[in-house]
């Protein structure tokens, strides 16, 4: 029987060294984002892969969620004769929280895993080592373009998600719940503040950063063949999810904690 303190200590040391490695990786990656050469073609290619290909899944998620939200708020609100709050609550919930978070999670599921699998395979087939021998820095060539592309693409995706989320609520509200279309849009516009949109975009950028960072980090450091790549893929998605949810909480508390 092992001393439980030994086990606890080992776990804490392991976690600390993992955080240290992640921190060094992040610092190296970010420093390469700002130093030439910058591979514009690769950034464009990644933006296409991350952005355009994620549009259907992000858009549908937002549309359905906005619609379901409107239905629930209508049912809840009708107990207090407050059906008219539907547009306001939907737009606030979507823009402040659900648009960026659900959009971020969906993209993380698609993109972090794909990045980890691609970079992991490049690692185990020595393609990353080959880059170095061809005088090309893997951080600059592989990781910096992914980080940049994700940070700039996610806000655009979330913008689309926000609009479709509100539209989902609008469709259910006017077609099923009998709300007036013109006043729905009016209430939506009245409730929405500029700060909501800004915070939504900031969240999206931060989530994009974590999506690319976790995909790259786990892929770049994957070890041990096909099984290692599989593990890297799973870890990338799980850690990206946690990073998104935690950073969302922190940003929400910072931005909206003061107002209340």
């Amino acid at each position: 029987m092992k001393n439980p303190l030994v086990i606890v200590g080992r776990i804490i040391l392991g976690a600390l060294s993992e955080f240290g490695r992640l921190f060094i990786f992040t610092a190296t990656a970010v420093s390469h984002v700002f130093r030439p050469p910058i591979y514009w073609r690769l950034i464009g290619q990644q933006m296409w892969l991350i952005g355009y290909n994620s549009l259907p899944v992000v858009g549908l998620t937002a549309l359905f969620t906005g619609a379901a939200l409107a239905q629930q708020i209508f049912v809840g609100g009708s107990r207090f004769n407050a059906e008219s709050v539907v547009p306001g609550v939907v737009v606030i919930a979507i823009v402040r929280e659900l648009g960026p978070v659900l959009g971020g999670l969906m993209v993380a599921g698609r993109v972090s895993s794909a990045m980890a699998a691609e970079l992991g395979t490049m690692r185990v087939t020595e393609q990353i080592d080959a880059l170095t021998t061809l005088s090309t820095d893997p951080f600059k060539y592989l990781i910096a373009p992914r980080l940049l592309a994700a940070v700039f693409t996610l806000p655009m995706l979330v913008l689309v998600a926000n609009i479709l989320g509100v539209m989902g609520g609008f469709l259910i509200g006017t077609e099923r719940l009998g709300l007036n279309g013109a006043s729905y849009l009016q209430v939506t516009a009245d409730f929405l503040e500029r700060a909501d949109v800004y915070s939504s975009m900031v969240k999206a950028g931060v989530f994009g950063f974590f999506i690319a960072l976790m995909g790259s980090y786990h892929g770049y450091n994957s070890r041990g063949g096909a099984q290692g790549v599989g593990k890297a893929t799973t870890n990338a998605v799980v850690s990206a999810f946690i990073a998104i949810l935690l950073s969302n909480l922190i940003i929400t508390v910072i931005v909206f904690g003061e107002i209340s």
Partner: protein
Amino acid sequence: MSTPMIDIKNLKKSFGNKIVLSNMNLSVKKGESLVIIGGSGSGKSVMLKCILGLLHPDSGTIHVDGQDIVQMGSRGRKRILDKIGMLFQGAALFDSLKVWENVAFGLIQGQGLNKKDAKEIAVEKLGRVGLTADVGELSPAELSGGMQKRVGLARAIAGDPEIIFFDEPTTGLDPIMADVINDLIVECVKDLGATTLTITHDMASAHKIADRVAMLYHGEIIWEGDKARIENSGNPYVEQFVSGSAQGPIQMDLMKN
């Protein structure tokens, strides 16, 4: 005597408490072809990665063309890497790029050549290894193992390097294709006048491409000498390896357990 092209002194590298290179000394003269033989897990790949700067050794020095690459910054190392070509064991071609883009990669990214000139050189180098220009338009996944190795060789020699590393160049190939690759290596190296360091466990390949042979065992060079002396080295480890016998001083890991 001129300074050696590659000079490794007291190189040590361990992972955790597993010692991979215990105290390695090796030098390769300019224009010489040195083949390092040794079983799996003898530290051959780790040694190569230390020379390329992919791994940082625990102690010891590695001089390439008279410069210590262990202490060197990234810019200096890039200058050294420009002189080096490498053929990887699995060819390590970039599967997102076409074959010719693979061959031209170092020319475009490393030396800043424009695409058109780089493609011309790439096609010429592909011809050098017996591949036609239309192979250049394929993606690496469409090629057989032997063709991938040839493309890897073309990529390694594309920048006219002064030093070339070959990591198990014949592993995974049939004996005839292995011989074709060996011939190509000998020819290309002769053309370039390059210094080469090859790691292999294929004795036929070692016979063909080596000027000198060294044997790595448990992280140390235990024997080195001219190719002609390998058959009567007088070293029981080398004799066992050359004859490929399970009986002898080298015990495989599975027997230890």
